């Protein structure tokens, strides 16, 4: 229920990753953290200090890092590559495609500073195409957790399966609102609020804003079902179908291009099973720019008020 989700504290999701991989490395000597000169940004410091033998510095050479990771799996290692989301995906797409995805290697591609909320560094670093690129690769899992606690659990869940995966998280301090002891399962969406008028499906930072939007809409007696779709691939089709059969309209919210994102995956499921009106809260075929995270979300139509408007529009189209 909406009132169950309160801000525990504000923490960056990348720090959730840092804690998660530290604990994983402690538990499993085959877990190896690789970085391309961004160990501090990816919060690897504690792991590096205590387990230097499980840390590999690759320098500013991401293409090589992806290949090194693929090769390490052949020796039974579980490599986690760490860098910014842009350099983790678009810069090295062919390396991921051939040496990791097509080769079926157990590499965990971990990406921070994704989306607009990277902020002041601007469009060169604000990758908004990564979910699309990664979900198109056969066999690639794509996971976008919503807050610090969930990112830590998602990181630890990376070793629960064999095969390549993309884990996307971010830079800014952000509301941390899911419980530490939550059940987290890759591929299993979280129903965060039950509602009857519209389904609102979000991932990453947009989940908190979607809960905020649902609270505002509740004041106007609009009942919104909120789903945290932390796994874009494989997507939880059952969760989508069950909800849209009840509400008959859907809004998706993501910090990503509309083309290729979460919304597109949800639309595919809806079209094949139960077509409904859908609105997309996403970046509309443009690059980002410098600014503060919340300013950027406002400018690019990803704020709480944008979500509220999208829900009303979706309902009006039923």
């Amino acid at each position, binding site marked *: 229920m909406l009132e169950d989700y309160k801000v525990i504290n504000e923490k960056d999701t990348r720090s959730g990753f840092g804690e998660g991989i530290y604990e994983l490395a402690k538990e499993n000597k085959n877990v190896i953290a690789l970085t391309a000169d961004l160990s501090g940004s990816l919060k690897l410091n504690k792991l590096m200090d205590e387990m230097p033998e499980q840390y590999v510095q690759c320098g500013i050479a991401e293409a090589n890092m992806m290949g090194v990771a*693929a090769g390490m799996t052949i020796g039974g290692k579980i490599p986690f590559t760490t860098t910014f989301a842009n350099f983790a995906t678009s810069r090295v797409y062919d390396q991921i495609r051939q040496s990791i995805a097509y080769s079926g290697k157990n590499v965990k591609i971990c990406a921070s500073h994704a989306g607009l909320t990277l902020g002041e560094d601007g469009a060169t670093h604000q990758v908004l195409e990564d979910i699309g690129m990664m979900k198109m690769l056969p066999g690639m899992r794509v996971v976008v957790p919503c807050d610090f606690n969930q990112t830590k659990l998602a990181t630890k869940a990376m070793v629960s399966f064999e095969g390549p995966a993309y884990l996307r998280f971010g830079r800014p301090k952000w509301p941390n609102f899911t419980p530490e002891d939550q059940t987290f399962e890759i591929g299993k969406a979280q129903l965060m609020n039950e509602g009857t008028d519209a389904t609102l499906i979000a991932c990453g930072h947009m989940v908190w804003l979607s809960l905020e939007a649902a609270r505002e809409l509740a004041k106007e007696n609009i009942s919104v079902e909120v789903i945290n779709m932390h796994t874009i691939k494989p997507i939880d089709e059952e969760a989508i179908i069950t909800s849209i059969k009840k509400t008959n309209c859907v809004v998706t919210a993501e910090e990503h291009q509309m083309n290729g994102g979460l919304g597109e995956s949800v639309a595919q499921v809806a079209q094949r099973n139960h077509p409904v009106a859908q609105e997309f809260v996403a970046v509309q075929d443009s690059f980002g720019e410098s600014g503060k995270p919340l300013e950027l979300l406002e400018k690019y139509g990803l704020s709480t008020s944008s979500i509220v408007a999208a829900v009303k529009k979706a309902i009006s189209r039923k």
Partner: protein
Amino acid sequence: MVGIPSHLGDGIFFSPLPLGSIYNTTIMEKLQEIASQVRRDIVRMVHGVQSGHPGGSLGCTDFLVALYFETMNHNAENFTMEGHGEDVFYLSNGHISPVFYSVLSRAGYFPIDELSTFRKLNTRLQGHPTTHEGLPGVRIASGSLGQGLSVACGSAMAKKMNDDASIVYTLHGDGELQEGQNWEALMFAAHHKLDNVISTIDFNGQQIDGSTDDVMSMGDIKAKWETFGWQMFEMNGNDMADVVKVLGEAKAATGNGKPIGILMKTEMGAGVDFMEGTHKWHGIAPNDDQLADALGQLSETLGDY
């Protein structure tokens, strides 16, 4: 597994002969016989599907035969992806798959008859090698150039982490070195002292659009690799005795803190006179007459598939 006596050509597990015997005429003759059969396999495979890359395959035949039948410790019968305790090989220039497939099958990784399926629908012998079809002997997909050295570095690093003293071998085209990722990997290997890597460059001076000097000259490749921190050897890749000798020297040089490179001079199309000395046969197949001409130059030593 190391220490099992070598049974050249008739065993499943191959281990190198003791130093001193590498000039043994009988062994050299046996390797030459295998190489002749592999060259027949290459031209027949490419002719059979009218597609594939014979030139580089023929040029690298002696190297791959020496590697798989003499130099490496490897277990063909019980292939495992991990290859713990075994020497492993990565083919970075995946388009010379015909020679790779022929050598793997002749070494016992999969049935020789399967060579007839090369590049055909539902085959495990894809145009470029892949792990996707579960073909024993292949540990990584290659084809998009410039990626193999990075993979080999990761594999070599994992071996060190696992206290596995075996060696990682690779093969690269010379034109392939135009891909920047190679130079990232060269830095990485030297920085991390991956002295269990032996990388060979097929230095045939040819690429699709012409000679490497005309297309994108690379200058002194050996000097460049040395500057990047590698210990370099040179060998004549179409002289079996030299290949076996230099591979032995390279192997002896492992464990000294530096990755090892071998600049291997080859003739594209080696062994088939009309395919030699040109980049024309990089990626085209012989017709029936050309096949007959080529096979007339190559003895059927081990039986065609």
